[in-house]
């Protein structure tokens, strides 16, 4: 008797689950199926955006053009008289061959993307689309640092806001301010703060405190570009992580902390033994979405760095709008998708989050 009851219940649950999932999947089919399908399909063609040129099926050509990489060694330039490697007088750097001489040119031109040193030898990484390879690197670095800082800062902010103190309510509102400022406007605001003269906030402060001699152009300086963008994003998105972590913190029952206090555990131990483990599911979800958004970063790169340094999504944009290569842009979209998917699975497995 109880068997058929429980199997009835199970069947009822299945039916209910099905019904509950219908709205979500209906929306998915209407708004996602065609666009996403079109992206996959177009990535295998050479379609041009807003062009009457015939579109033909090119198979994996777009992918090959984007991902083809070639690593070549650069020979040192030896001074014929002394037999030693030439050193540039101005910079003091050792001179190597120019990449233009070693990178392949037929049937496709490979242009230099990076150079690196390994055990005293110098290598150049050439690619058919060096901007794309660089954009992948930029995006990964950006994601790594911004997610890291946002999580740590978000955790600190959440812990602080979670404790009892006067003005807690106001603090929760203050916490959201950066997230609430419209992204494109926030990017312009920071762009102005980075202004390369003393009219810009950072140059003004640096000058006032005697930290810098001349004004820096943060967004044109190769080594300052990524840190600047990361700073902007961390400012903007810390509230997102903080709020999600805060919601997770709320779920941890106070009794656990009280019991630990009574047992004489320090705040430190309480944090590591109670807070963190119980926070894992919320942290996992927050991390997944934050990483997803970071890998797709577009607004901040497009407004502040435009064509100086690309993220995968901003490179995608310029391929579509300026070069009008829709086939290639779609291929980029698919590659981004695969990278994000990989990260999602990685998170789920390593954080031990159960989906069943």
């Amino acid at each position: 008797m109880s068997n058929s009851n429980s199997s009835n219940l199970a069947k009822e649950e299945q039916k209910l689950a099905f019904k509950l999932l219908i709205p979500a999947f209906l929306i998915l089919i209407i708004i996602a199926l065609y666009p996403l399908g079109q992206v996959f399909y177009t990535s295998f063609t050479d379609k041009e955006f807003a062009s009457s040129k015939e579109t033909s099926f090119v198979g994996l050509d777009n992918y090959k053009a984007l991902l083809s990489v070639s690593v070549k060694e650069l020979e040192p330039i030896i001074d014929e008289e002394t037999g030693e490697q030439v050193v540039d007088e101005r910079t003091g750097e050792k001179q190597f061959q120019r990449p233009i001489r070693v990178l392949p040119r037929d049937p496709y031109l490979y242009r230099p993307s990076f150079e690196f040193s390994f055990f005293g030898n110098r290598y150049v990484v050439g690619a058919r689309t060096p901007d794309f390879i660089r954009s992948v690197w930029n995006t990964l670095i950006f994601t790594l640092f911004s997610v890291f800082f946002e999580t740590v800062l978000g955790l600190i902010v959440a812990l602080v806001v979670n404790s009892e103190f006067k003005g807690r309510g106001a603090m929760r509102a203050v916490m959201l301010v950066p997230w609430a400022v419209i992204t494109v406007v926030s990017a312009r605001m920071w762009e102005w703060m980075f202004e390369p003269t003393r009219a810009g906030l950072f140059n003004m402060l640096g000058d006032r405190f005697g930290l810098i001699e001349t004004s820096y152009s943060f967004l044109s300086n190769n080594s300052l570009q990524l840190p600047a963008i990361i700073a902007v994003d961390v400012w903007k998105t810390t509230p997102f992580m903080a709020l999600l972590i805060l919601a997770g913190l709320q779920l941890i029952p106070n009794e656990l902390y009280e019991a630990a206090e009574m047992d004489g555990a320090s705040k430190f131990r309480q944090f590591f033994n109670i807070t963190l483990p119980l926070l894992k599911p919320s942290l996992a979800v927050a991390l997944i979405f934050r990483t997803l958004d970071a890998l797709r970063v577009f607004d901040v790169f497009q407004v502040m760095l435009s064509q100086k340094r690309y993220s995968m999504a901003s490179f995608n944009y310029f391929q579509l709008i300026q070069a009008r290569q829709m086939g290639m842009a779609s291929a980029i979209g698919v590659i981004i998708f695969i990278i994000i998917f990989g990260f999602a699975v990685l998170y789920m497995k390593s954080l031990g989050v159960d989906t069943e």
Partner: protein
Amino acid sequence: MTRDQKKIFKKILFYLVLAVIVIYLLFPFYWAISSSLKSEAQLSMTPATLIPRDPDTGEISFFTRNYRAIFSNGGFVRGLINSTIVATSTTILALLTGSFAAFALGKLRFKGKTPALYTILAMTMFPQVTVLSGLYAVINALNLSARVSMIFTYLLFTLPFTTWVLTSFFRDLPDEIMQSAQVDGATPFQTFHMILLPLTAPALVTTGLLSFIQAWNEYLFALTFTSIDPSSRTVPVAIQFFSGEFARQEPFGEIMAAAVMVTIPIVVLVLIFQKRIVAGLTAGAVKG
């Protein structure tokens, strides 16, 4: 150190950290406010001043024309209305659909949860720019109005978010609640909307707020979908249309004024809802 001294020290440290956080979060916004009160001449001053000053005399001088300009600009006010409509609708839709799906994925027993979760997540794994032209084609084919298109397309990123967060919250709710409710004779759906949903209120408010702001901030889709229908422009698009007097001129002061004006309603919204963010599990249901 004595225990009291230790306590005071900890308190001071705490407030110090709090102060640093507040400055970090609010200073750029303060800079936006101060920029919004500067005229062009004041903005070009070197070195830049923390408080708007007259370029010649150095006295404090506020320039309020920027604010007057944005309010006389009908587009801005209409943008606020449109943004509110679109963001609210898409958030409600995302929360409804998301919570239904989350209940199924978090509490009910059936096969195929992982593929379902990943499929929903996949919706948001593409950069916006890539799916833009496909979406535009769908909108045109279905002949949807600008606002409706925005409401539905924003679900591309709000729906997976609400679904996943709520699924995790539902899963964490103790099974005993469901079981005791079933023993009392409630159907699963009744358990859902009468008992479980209220318990996840903090999660609902949190995801709702975050989704609302994400929809509020969205620019690319809004720009394309409202291109032929300027009356349905949302705020980010309206701000981009702020024109100076001449081409190439960026009326920075006005843009900052708009940014300030747009952020304030959100802050007010949060102040209203912030108690709900921290409701926490009520004792009764759990102890049972």
